[in-house]
């Protein structure tokens, strides 16, 4: 019975994102049938399948990049959130704890204020995300003692600092033109995604995920605390630095294309812990699956629910909060 359960869980975790991937092609203003989707997706590798250029364009240029982006962003935020919770021994932190989101947000604001193009907004967001975490890390290094608490507090401080700069940027932004763009970016959306933007984030995202997956078992040891980790042969400072670099690459890359999307990095790790338990060996892969599925679902709602696009950041909270509170009520008997 138990073994059976395990296989059911694994199968669901593998099949759910695949199923949603194909399902998402069917959703949208322009109706496409399942057969057309399959034929179109297969057409590049088999020229016998002929499909109309209109459908091909929608599938490859519009829906495919958006679906992949939603899945990558969801998976990144979720796995980085889970890793950060382990690194900081704290189930309340999420992927933006070290200031990535605020830094990226300010980078995007700056690019918008400078009237830079879409492309520059993404690059600025990515770089400022990395810079803010670097500042956080360097500040924490100037304190000899304190360890992870100092790191988290530095992150909170740097977030507050960049959030203030974001407010400043909003204050001086042109209210008819740039302010709406800033506001929209900060609420998170994938509507401006295209294949080029996607290609830029693929390298940081895949390398970040690769590193986290390789190191995931050892994360258990770190999650027991620095002293215990060291007594078990792990160098906590070095190991944490590697993990933070991986998580920061993931989060900054995700935020650079999607804007600020809250809740995924906090909510998904908790949902996954209820499904597969706290062992990071199982938890991190589960976060990839559920994170990708969750954000894809949310993005589908965002682009199809009403006539205009609803920013994803709004939906993740509106849908995520009740789910989270419901699970909190059900599931946390083992937590002290």
């Amino acid at each position, binding site marked *: 019975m138990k073994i059976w359960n395990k296989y059911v869980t694994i199968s669901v975790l593998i099949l759910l994102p695949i199923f949603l991937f194909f399902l998402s092609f069917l959703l949208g203003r322009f109706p496409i049938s399942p057969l057309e989707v399959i034929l179109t997706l297969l057409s590049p590798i088999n020229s016998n399948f002929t499909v109309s250029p209109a459908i091909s364009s929608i599938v490859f240029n519009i829906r495919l990049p958006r679906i992949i982006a939603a899945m990558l962003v969801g998976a990144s935020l979720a796995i980085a959130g889970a890793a950060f919770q382990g690194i900081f021994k*704290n189930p309340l932190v999420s992927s933006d704890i070290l200031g990535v989101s605020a830094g990226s947000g300010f980078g995007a604001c700056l690019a918008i204020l400078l009237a830079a193009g879409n492309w520059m907004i993404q690059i600025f967001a990515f770089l400022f995300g990395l810079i803010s975490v670097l500042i956080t890390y360097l500040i924490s290094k100037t304190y000899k003692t304190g360890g992870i608490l100092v790191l988290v507090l530095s992150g909170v401080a740097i977030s507050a600092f960049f959030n203030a700069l974001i407010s400043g940027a909003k204050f001086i932004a042109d209210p008819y033109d740039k302010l709406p763009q800033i506001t929209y970016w900060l609420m998170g959306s994938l509507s401006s995604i295209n294949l080029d933007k996607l290609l830029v984030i693929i390298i940081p995202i895949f390398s970040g995920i690769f590193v986290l997956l390789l190191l995931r078992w050892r994360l258990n*040891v770190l999650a027991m605390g620095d002293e215990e980790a060291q*007594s078990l*042969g792990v160098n906590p400072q070095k190991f944490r630095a590697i993990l933070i670099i991986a998580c920061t690459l993931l989060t900054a890359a995700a935020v650079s294309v999607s804007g600020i999307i809250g809740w995924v990095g906090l909510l998904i790790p908790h949902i996954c812990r209820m499904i597969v*338990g706290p062992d990071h*060996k199982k938890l991190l892969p589960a976060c990839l699956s559920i994170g990708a599925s969750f954000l894809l679902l949310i993005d589908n709602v965002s682009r199809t629910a009403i006539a205009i696009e609803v920013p994803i950041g709004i939906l993740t909270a509106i849908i995520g909060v009740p789910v989270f509170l419901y699970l909190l009520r059900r599931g946390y008997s083992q937590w002290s």
Partner: protein
Amino acid sequence: MEKIIEVKEISFSYNNGDNNIFENISFSINKGDVLCILGPNGTGKTTLLKCLNGLQDIKSGEILLNGKNLKSMPFPEISKLVGYIAQGHVSTFPFSVIDVVLMGRSPYISLTDSPMEKDFKIAERSLKDLGILDMRDRPYTTLSGGEKQLVFLARVLTQEPKLLILDEPTSHLDFGNQIRLLELIENLSKKGLAIIMSSHFPDHTFLGSNKVAILKNKNFIALGDPLNVITKDNLKKAYDIDIELIEVSKSRKVCVPLRCDISVEFDNLAK
């Protein structure tokens, strides 16, 4: 005799300041030895224990682990030789017992790998040796203090070390579990493990320890076998209180602290 750890004239201060926590401490421990370190609160027992496996860096002196200088050893190499149980573990995630015990294999598993069949076998063997195999899949956060201590003991055994360092292993345990744990420690020493532990119970040194040290005022005020060290005089020096020693059997005494008749006026309560 095989020397597991040799401590030569070590001193320690926080941030390498002038205020030494302890200075010029020397001792050595052989295979099968059990050293119990006594001393009042805040005297530096925990700090001393942490220096012995490199969790804290000593200011001067030298520690030889199996003949090698501790300072030159990388973390995994130290943890293959030394198992450490801290006092007052703070838990966050409800890992299952087997996951916690498997962490003991960490020094043997390369950074990018995870435990294999062989590691599971060793971990389960430790659980079985301690009679807690039935707890294998329970979240360790739901266990009682005594059960948790056994899980951590299973984990350090899974490390297959030569030396165990236990920081107040009997604190928070009930009367029965205290004795059971001490006997377990004695059995482990008979299997060849060297053990260094700290304690607040002078009596406990008569149950399995063959060496006792009393740490007070930056140094050992006594070091030797329990019958010689646990005396009225030494205990008075250690705890600043009169203590009666009562012989229970030939090699076992109990220590009874006598009243010291503190009189305090609780002004706030005197209504």
